[in-house]
């Protein structure tokens, strides 16, 4: 135990002496959190719209107004020419074209049904799908309102009973978006980005630290001392385990103060999960350090591994959208489990019982990876 204490002191002295390294580990995560949370976003903002209103009636103007009032669309241009609209779409001046055909209102009153054409720039399929859902909803709402204003005749009288709100439909559908009703994108991304930051410290920087001793040749010196391998590994990994937890704490503080992320669950639970997760992350870092000879290699390998892990972790895109075999691979990623836990605890307020499955996975993963990496480590340095 005393040996370990001395070793740890040496490691911390080394870390605190290297100001660049220290800055890299404390300041960089905060900057990354601020930048990534703003840049890594699929948030769908106001879409510029080209309106081709060939009817120019109360009903058609009302539809355009309703779209603007929703805050999801803004009218960038309007003309009766579909050709001009198409050019605007091709040159990216607008991302959606709304065409209201002539006699729109007349068809509605006579036949009770009228079409409108909506052309969406679907280059970005995900964004287009979201915009499409807004458009459909606004059009449905407008039709509902028109039912009461446009046709105040006997047929609809039954539907517009003054006692009930004028829904004019047979089913009163209410929709609720739980946990994030305002659809704030930060609430989704920031908990995941915190995982990313902790991962970088635990895998890349820890790996580079071990490899540096290899490069300089001091690792061999350490190997011939009476220090056991377990002590050596512990002394190499523990500092980063602590620094990563400190980083997580700072990150959570920034998330709370800057991004106003809800923290509905217990923070203690978040740290408990982080403690388990870091065993896995550090184990991977240790493993990288056994196969890399230079810091440059360590950086490249951890970059490649982290890229695969992060892309397949559900950080940016939902896991369920992946093909089944890719989902199976994602299941093997500790990053995925930790992100699931972070989102569940922070955003949904999950308790220990709700997240026990990913927690067990993390613990198992950590134990296995760390053990394998430690075995590999002693083999290569002997």
């Amino acid at each position, binding site marked *: 135990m005393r040996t370990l204490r001395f070793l740890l002191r040496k490691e911390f002295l080394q870390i605190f002496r290297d100001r660049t390294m220290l800055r890299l580990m404390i300041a960089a995560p905060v900057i990354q959190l601020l930048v990534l949370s*703003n*840049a*890594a*976003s*699929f*948030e*769908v903002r106001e879409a510029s719209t080209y309106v081709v209103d060939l009817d120019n009636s109360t009903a058609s103007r009302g539809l355009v107004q309703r779209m603007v009032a929703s805050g999801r669309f803004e009218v960038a241009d309007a003309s009766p020419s579909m050709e001009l609209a198409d050019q605007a779409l*091709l040159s*990216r001046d607008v991302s959606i074209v709304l065409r209201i055909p002539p006699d729109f209102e007349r068809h509605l009153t006579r036949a009770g*049904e*009228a079409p409108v054409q*909506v052309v969406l*720039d*679907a*280059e*970005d*399929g995900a964004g*287009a799908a*979201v915009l*499409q*859902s*807004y*458009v*459909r*909803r606004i*059009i*449905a709402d407008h*039709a509902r309102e028109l*039912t009461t204003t446009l046709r105040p005749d006997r047929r*609809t009288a*039954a539907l517009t009973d003054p006692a*009930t709100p004028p829904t*004019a*439909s*047979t*089913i009163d*559908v*209410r*929709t*609720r*978006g*739980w*946990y994030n009703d305002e659809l*704030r994108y930060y609430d989704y991304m920031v908990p995941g980005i915190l995982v990313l930051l902790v991962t970088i410290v635990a895998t890349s920087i820890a790996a580079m630290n071990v490899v540096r001793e290899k490069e300089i040749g001091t690792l061999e010196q350490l190997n011939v001392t009476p220090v056991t391998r377990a002590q050596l590994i512990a002394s190499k990994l523990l500092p980063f385990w602590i620094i990563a937890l400190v980083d997580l704490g700072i990150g959570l503080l920034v998330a709370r103060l800057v991004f106003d992320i809800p923290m509905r669950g217990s923070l203690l639970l978040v740290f408990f999960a982080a403690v388990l997760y870091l065993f896995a992350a550090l184990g991977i870092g240790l493993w990288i350090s056994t196969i890399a000879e230079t810091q*440059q290699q360590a*950086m490249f390998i951890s*970059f490649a591994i982290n*890229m*695969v892990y992060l*892309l397949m972790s559900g950080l*940016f895109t*939902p896991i*369920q959208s*992946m093909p089944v075999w*890719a989902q199976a691979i994602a299941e093997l990623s500790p990053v995925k489990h930790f992100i699931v836990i972070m*989102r*569940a605890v922070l955003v*949904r307020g999950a*308790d220990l019982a*709700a997240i026990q499955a990913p927690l067990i996975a993390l613990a198992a993963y950590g134990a296995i990876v760390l053990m394998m990496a430690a075995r590999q480590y002693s083999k290569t340095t002997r």
Partner: protein
Amino acid sequence: MMKPSLRGFIVKETRHILRDRQTLLILLLLPLAQVLLFGYALRTDIEQVRLAVVDPVPDAASHELRSRFAGSGVYEIVRNVPTTEALTDLFEQGAIDQAVVFGPDFGSALGREKPAELLIITDATDPNSGSTMQAYARGVVEAFEREVSAQGPRPLRIVPELRMRFNPTLESVNLFIPGLIALVLTLVSALMSAISLSREKERGTMEVLLVSPLRPWQIIVGKVLPYLGLGLINVVTVLLAARIVFDVPIRGSVALLLAECLLFIVTSLALGILIAAITSSQRTAMIGSLLALMLPTTLLSGMIFPISSLPGWLQPVTHTVPAKWFILIARGIMLRGVGLDYLWLETTILLALTAAILVFAIRAFDYRLG
């Protein structure tokens, strides 16, 4: 005709690259792996929604609507729970994505004066998936509603005829491939040429080259030219893989696309030279490339994350990122099928940026090593 000294130098550099089999293999296979990874992993289309049903008093109508959800192809009813309270646990565990709560007298209210009550609860942790799932559920309910109320008085209907231009199937991979080309070229052409040039500086062999009959610009050209060839191979690999595996279209002119790729390779090489010029060691060149090239290319180019999603103050910054212009051009040619008549502005900007970087890099390059 090229001077024999320069030709000999280029041959030597090419041999250098070809000799390091391991790095070469990584450089050739990396783009392929990335196409597969991006194509399969980075998807946002929602194909399966796990649904819970709260139906305290089941009747014929609620049964019918349930089977419609189940038969829609998207929904899978995974749970039936008695109360709305029970949903909290399921959502927290992440066991369900959405829930449908029937009003207590759903069936009997249907077709009466008062509308039947239906509550749709969606896990909106991910805002985009949340709104898409909400729209799915509304679609199912509305179709059901139309049929149920077919006999009675019908509300007015506005039928939206939606057309998804440029990417009708909403495939995410179509969006990502042009960006991936930019990423691979930044990685291979810029990063590798920067490291290769700075290695020469670090080892002191640059001095040897400088006293040779080669002019300084010839040294730079000779060092980066092989990476131009490698970059072109990568472009073709990515395009072929995208075409064969994911059926990504190239609707415009292939010749124009390749020409624009060539232009962007030159841009990347210029960036590589610039980085090598202002750094002194391989390590700083590498960290510099990662921070100054990879980060903007992945985050500020619209490659994965739409530029329109960035905060207002960050959007003007993207104008200075060459990859942004290249991606606009590549998407224009591949997905929109437009030519230079629509892309002349982007091309001009990319040309101007490239020229500026190139001039700056060659001036900054320190030929007299001190």
